[in-house]
Structures are given as structure tokens and as C-alpha cells.
């Protein structure tokens, strides 16, 4: 070999996970076929290999699951909090024990790199259950009055970008507060939720407390609409979020929505440049940019723009795109053909509207859904790619001259989920953070998550918060 340090393939073993050829719906503690017998295939986005065939829930299944959850609610909500806590601690521990298996599974079904599922998704999933386990017997101390009551049956619909983590964000607080759950995972990533069903059984969780219904949008809509659902929690697109908001109008259903974003990552001229570069990379290329809080708009102060972009491009050439199961892969596959088409279309719009495209030089595998890390310069507020959520590894670079201008541009969006601020000056961080209309503001870091920290958006990024003490409110009757 020549002087170059070529990393040999370092694939994580697939043998740690045993995927069955087919899976049922998980209702009332049992796996069952769909009432109408429908199934769908889930594929590995990095190879297009069919991983398994999964029962597809319809309205009748939704009804059955909601009824099971309703039956389970009475006993579950009447359990002492300390007992509910112990179930959740058990779940947290089993997730920790099975985390490598689940990480490999998630990587196969979602396409994201094993480095992320192993080092980010799974530790956060376990921590989330661990955190909310501790709340179950402490609700009196949470600031929602004495003996706060659960809502009842929670209908939860989650996306494909962090399948198990979004499940944890939904289920852990719901159970801790005494609700029961019917959860619909996304149609492209149903497997980890079904493995979670098995974990519920291992933990001895009473039947019906957690029900998992793989399916498509129609099942999600049926769940949201079901008259015996007391709480709707949705993470996904703003368009669907608006549809849900219309659906629940006039009902007593409590709703929380975590929707899209177009996060501004603002780099001032006194930023710690090397760390800012890392933060920009994390902000937009973590999980192939398929992150609602991605820092998809880079706002850079003009005086450091050239220096920063040079450093950023140099850094992007070191990103390793390929087999998501390889431990050295930084950029995995796009989750689906549909999502790839959307990213492709939006980047074409970007070029058509006159923005300058630069993509990291990397070879894309022939099978599967792939998109090279890409950035656009010469982008203005008027460009589509500065306004619409791309949900892919595509960064739009805009510049600013003064802090006021940075704030004005950052806030000039229908969304308001996340933002980043890079400067070594503390008072600037706090002043800018004050002015930003965004639910999460990261300073000198990006895409950090913790179960103790509330997460959620302003404006069309949704409402309600998940995580932390604040996340309890979404599942408690505090009217």
C-alpha cells in the first residue's frame, strides 16, 4: 500500500440481530395479523434488501388496539408510581443490555451509520426511559399540582428518522404519567418498534399498556381520529401536523406536535472556527440531514465567510460515505427512494434558482438510496432552498454583516425549531439567543439531546415540549 492510510472495511456484525421473516401488529400483549390480512415489506435503504414483511394496520386494528389500551388504562394508571417506575427501569435496562442488537437493527432498517445508532440513538433511548422512570413516583414534585392525573389513551405517530428514539420520547413520559399507548411507527422503519414490543414482554409490562401498529398514514389518521384516544402526539412533517390539528379540532384531545424546521446555524467572526466547522457538519450531516432540528441554513458573518467555507469544504472531503454497518462510516443512506427524490428535486430547484452547488467528492454505492454531502453558496432568503425543509444532507449558506441582520434572517422562516450560535463572546450568545424565535438554541455546539432537556418548536415547527420536567405536561391533565 502506498502512503495513504486507507481504512480497511470494519463492518459491525449483523449476527447480533435476528430479524424474523415476518412480524405482526402488537396488540394487547400479543403479536397478531392485521384484520384485513394486509402486509408490507420493509427494506434496508442501503441495499434495497427486503428485511421483513410486516403486518399493516388498518382502521379495525386501530380500534382493537385503542380498546386494549383503554382496558389496560384503569389498572395501569392506578398502580403506585413507584411500581410504574420499576417497569420503566426494567425497560431501560433491557434496552441497555440489547443496545448493540438494536443499533444494528436500526442501522439496517433506517440506513443511518452504526456509529450514530451505537453512540447516539441507543444511549439516548435508554437514558430517556431511565429518566422518565424516575418521574413516575415523583409527579407531585413536578410543578403540576398535587396528584396530577394521566389523560388516558395516547395515540402516537412517529417518523422514520430516529425510529427508536422517537418511540422513547413518546412512550417513556406517557407510561411514567400513567397513560397507555398506541403507537404507529413509520412505514419505512417499523422493526425497532416491534423489537421494543418484545422488550415490553421481557419486562413483564401488563398487556395493553403498549400497543404497536406498523402501518401507513391511513392508520395514523385513524388513530388520531379515534374517539377514545385522549392524547395525540405526532412527530413528522408540518403538512401532516396541520392536518392533525384540523382533525382534532372540536375534541377534548390534547395534542403535541414536533414538526419541521429550517434551523439557522449562525457563525460570528469570533467563533472557535475549528469547532464551528465540526458543529456545522454535525448540524446538517448527522443522520444524513434527516433531522427536524438540523442546522440546514448556515448564516456566516461575511468577514470570515471565505475562511470558514474553505475549512468546511476541506472537512467535508474527509466524510466517509458508504455501508452504514461499517464502523467508520460517517454518512449512510437516505431512508427511502421517496425521500431521495425529494432531496434531489429541491437541490435541482436550488441550482435552477441560481445558487452555487458544491458536493463532496465521494463515490455513491450503486444499490440503495444515496446523496453526497452538498452545500449551496450564493443563497439568499428568497431561494427555495433557504426556506423549504430539504430533510437531507444539503446545507444552504447565507451570509450576514451584523448581529441584527443574523437574527432577522434566522427568524425569517415559517419554522422555529432550532438554531445555533457560534461566538466566544458569552453576552452575544445570550443576547442573540434571546431574540431567536426557536425552541432549542445551541451555543458553540449543535444537535445535542438529553432526556432532561425540553425539546420542541415555535411557530410551524409545532407545539408542546418533549423531554425534561416540561415533557410531563403533555401527558398530564393539567387543564
Amino acid at each position: 500500500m502506498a502512503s495513504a492510510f486507507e481504512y480497511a472495511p470494519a463492518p459491525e456484525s449483523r449476527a447480533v440481530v435476528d430479524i424474523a421473516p415476518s412480524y405482526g401488529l402488537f396488540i394487547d400483549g400479543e403479536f397478531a395479523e392485521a384484520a384485513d390480512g394486509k402486509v408490507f415489506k420493509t427494506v434496508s435503504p442501503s441495499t434495497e434488501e427486503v428485511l421483513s414483511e410486516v403486518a399493516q394496520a388498518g382502521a379495525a386494528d386501530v380500534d382493537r388496539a385503542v380498546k386494549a389500551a383503554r382496558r389496560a388504562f384503569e389498572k395501569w394508571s392506578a398502580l403506585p408510581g413507584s411500581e410504574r417506575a420499576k417497569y420503566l427501569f426494567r425497560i431501560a435496562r433491557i434496552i441497555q443490555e440489547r443496545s448493540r442488537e438494536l443499533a444494528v437493527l436500526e442501522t439496517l432498517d433506517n440506513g443511518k451509520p452504526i456509529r450514530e445508532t451505537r453512540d447516539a440513538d441507543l444511549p439516548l433511548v435508554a437514558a430517556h426511559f431511565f429518566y422518565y422512570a424516575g418521574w413516575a413516583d415523583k409527579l407531585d414534585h413536578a410543578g403540576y399540582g398535587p396528584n396530577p392525573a394521566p389523560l388516558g389513551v395516547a395515540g402516537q405517530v412517529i417518523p422514520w428518522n430516529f425510529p427508536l428514539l422517537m418511540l422513547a420520547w413518546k412512550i417513556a413520559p406517557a407510561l411514567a404519567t400513567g397513560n397507555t399507548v398506541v403507537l404507529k411507527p413509520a412505514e419505512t422503519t417499523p422493526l425497532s418498534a416491534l423489537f421494543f414490543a418484545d422488550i415490553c414482554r421481557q419486562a413483564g409490562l401488563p398487556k395493553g399498556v403498549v400497543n404497536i401498529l406498523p402501518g401507513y398514514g391511513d392508520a395514523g389518521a385513524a388513530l388520531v381520529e379515534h374517539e377514545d384516544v385522549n392524547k395525540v402526539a405526532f412527530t413528522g412533517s408540518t403538512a401532516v401536523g396541520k392536518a392533525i390539528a384540523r382533525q382534532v379540532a372540536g375534541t377534548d384531545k390534547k395534542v403535541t406536535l414536533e414538526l419541521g424546521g429550517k434551523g439557522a446555524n449562525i457563525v460570528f467572526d469570533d467563533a472557535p472556527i475549528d469547532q464551528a466547522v465540526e458543529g456545522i457538519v454535525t448540524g446538517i450531516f448527522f443522520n444524513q440531514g434527516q433531522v427536524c432540528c438540523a442546522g440546514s441554513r448556515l448564516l456566516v458573518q461575511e468577514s470570515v465567510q471565505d475562511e470558514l467555507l474553505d475549512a468546511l469544504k476541506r472537512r467535508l472531503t474527509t466524510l466517509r460515505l458508504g455501508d452504514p454497518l461499517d464502523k467508520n462510516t460517517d454518512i449512510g443512506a437516505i431512508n427511502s427512494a421517496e425521500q431521495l427524490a425529494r432531496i434531489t428535486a429541491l437541490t435541482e430547484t436550488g441550482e435552477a434558482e441560481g445558487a452555487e452547488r458544491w458536493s463532496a467528492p465521494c463515490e455513491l454505492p450503486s444499490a440503495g438510496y444515496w446523496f453526497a454531502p452538498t452545500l449551496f453558496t450564493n443563497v439568499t432568503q428568497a431561494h427555495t432552498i433557504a426556506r423549504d425543509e430539504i430533510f437531507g444532507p444539503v446545507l444552504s449558506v447565507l451570509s450576514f454583516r451584523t448581529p441584527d441582520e443574523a437574527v432577522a434572517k434566522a427568524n425569517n422562516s415559517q419554522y422555529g425549531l432550532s438554531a445555533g450560535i457560534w461566538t466566544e463572546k458569552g453576552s452575544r450568545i445570550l443576547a442573540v439567543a434571546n431574540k431567536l424565535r426557536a425552541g432549542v438554541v445551541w451555543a458553540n455546539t449543535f444537535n445535542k439531546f438529553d432526556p432532561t432537556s425540553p425539546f420542541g418548536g415555535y411557530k410551524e415547527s409545532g407545539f408542546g415540549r418533549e423531554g425534561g420536567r416540561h415533557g410531563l405536561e403533555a401527558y398530564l391533565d393539567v387543564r
Partner: protein
Amino acid sequence: MSDNRLSVFKTYKLYVGGKFPRSESGRVYEVTDSKGKWLANAPQSSRKDARDAVVAARKAFGGWSGATAYNRGQVLYRVAEMLEGRKDQFVREVADAEGLSKSKAAAVVDAAIDRWVWYAGWTDKIGQVVGGANPVAGPFFNLSTPEPTGVVAVLAPQESSFLGLVSVIAPVIATGNTAVVIASADSPLPALSLGEVLATSDLPGGVVNVLSGRTAEIATPLASHQDVNAIDLTGADTGLAKELEIAAADNLKRVLRPQPVDGAADWTADPGTHRLTAFLETKTVWHPTGALGVSGSSY
């Protein structure tokens, strides 16, 4: 196993700095069950053992208080897991110590295990419950957060040798303090056995140090010790509590007084948060958010 097999007795030892020393004094005292039958000899700690325990607790403080709250929660939960596996031993020791039936002792041990779980959940929540941002009238970010006070001397309750013991240790260490614990004088065996559980629960050595012996003899040097930050007087009688509180005033230790005699401690009751907050300091940080300039810009 045959009935006439001669059993192996256990030598009970102190738990200091993650190790199991005998008392430096070489003394032991007889521990009996509630009916006066000899159970074992326990180390009778001296003031030098107390001194060594404070050194160990201080050494452990940086790492333990600096660990993430999540990590401390995991460790406390691990204690519960390990206790669950050694339940039989503790049921026997508690039954002997407190004169309880097996089933009553089992209920006590169950409650003690659940108490670890309760406090495991508090490690990463107490900050959100007692801390927070303060809306000061000015261009400042202002945040109050609780921090552990340091090394806490804990006089464990004399009667409740295990549930009471756990109920005073767990809240002290949950928030990041380290502890020097004086076990119940007459019933120290569950406490000394707890040391063995703590040693195998990922709890760093020195975070909890367990001493057995005459309460006043050990507590007196701890109460006046200049490197002890707080003292929990639960296990002191009225006279001793007053003496110790006076001694503690020398370096203004935080003092948690024993509960009033007439309100006999019910260790099964909901513990609330007062044992957590008793050993917390509140730190408030001010930071400008950018002065308002002549143009009205706040950057």
C-alpha cells in the same frame, strides 16, 4: 448440605475508601440480636477511623460530585439491583437486628430497595425542581442550580437498622455529596453488609464510608472536623444532638436535626425531598445578555 456442618462465621469490617479495614484501634464489640443472643463482633471505630473516613470521603468528592447526574442515577439504581440479589441475607440480618418476623423483615428490605430506586430517579431531577432561571430586572441571564455541599457526616437512625439507614444515606449521595456514616450502635450489621453491596455497585470507593461503634465517640470528632461540611444528626439522642450541633457551629456545618422524639420516625412514609435539599448549596450565576447600546441594539 448436612445439618451438622459447621458454618463459617463472617468477620464484619468497616467500609472506608472502598476497602474493608478493621478498626485502627483493634477494638470490637459484641453485637446481639433483639433477645440478647450474640450475633457477631463488630469493629468499634475510634476517632482515627473517623478521620480516615473523612479523608476518603473528601478524596472521593471531586469525582462523585463531578459525575453526571445520569451516571449517579445509574449507580444508585445498580445498588438496588445488587440488593435485590442479596435480599435473603438482609432479611436475616434485619430480622435479627430488629426482632422482626421474616415477612416483616422482608417488607422492610423491599422498602429499602425501592428507596434506592426512588433516589436513583432524583439525581437528575432535583436540579429542575429546586433550580431554575430567575427573571431579574435587567439584561442578565440568571440561573440558580443546586450543588452538593461536600462531605456529610451521617448518624444513621438507631432503631431502623436498614430502611432508616438507606433512607439517610441515599439522599446524601444522590446529589453528589460523599458520606461518613455511623451505623446504628446496637444493630450495625446490616450497615456493614451494605458496604459490601456498595463496593460491588459501581459506586466509587470513598463515596460512602461506614463506621460502627459507639455513636458519640465517632460523632464527636466528626462534628468538630473542619473538613466536614454537614452533619445529619438523625441517630443522635437529644442531648448528643445538641452537643454535636454546637460543635458543628465551629465551621458552620449544615445541620439536619433529628426528628422530634414525639414524632417517632416512620421510615416507610413518602420521603419527600427535604433530605436531598438539606445538603445542597444553591449557586446563582449572573451573565450579561448584551448591553443596550445607543442604537437600541442589544448586541
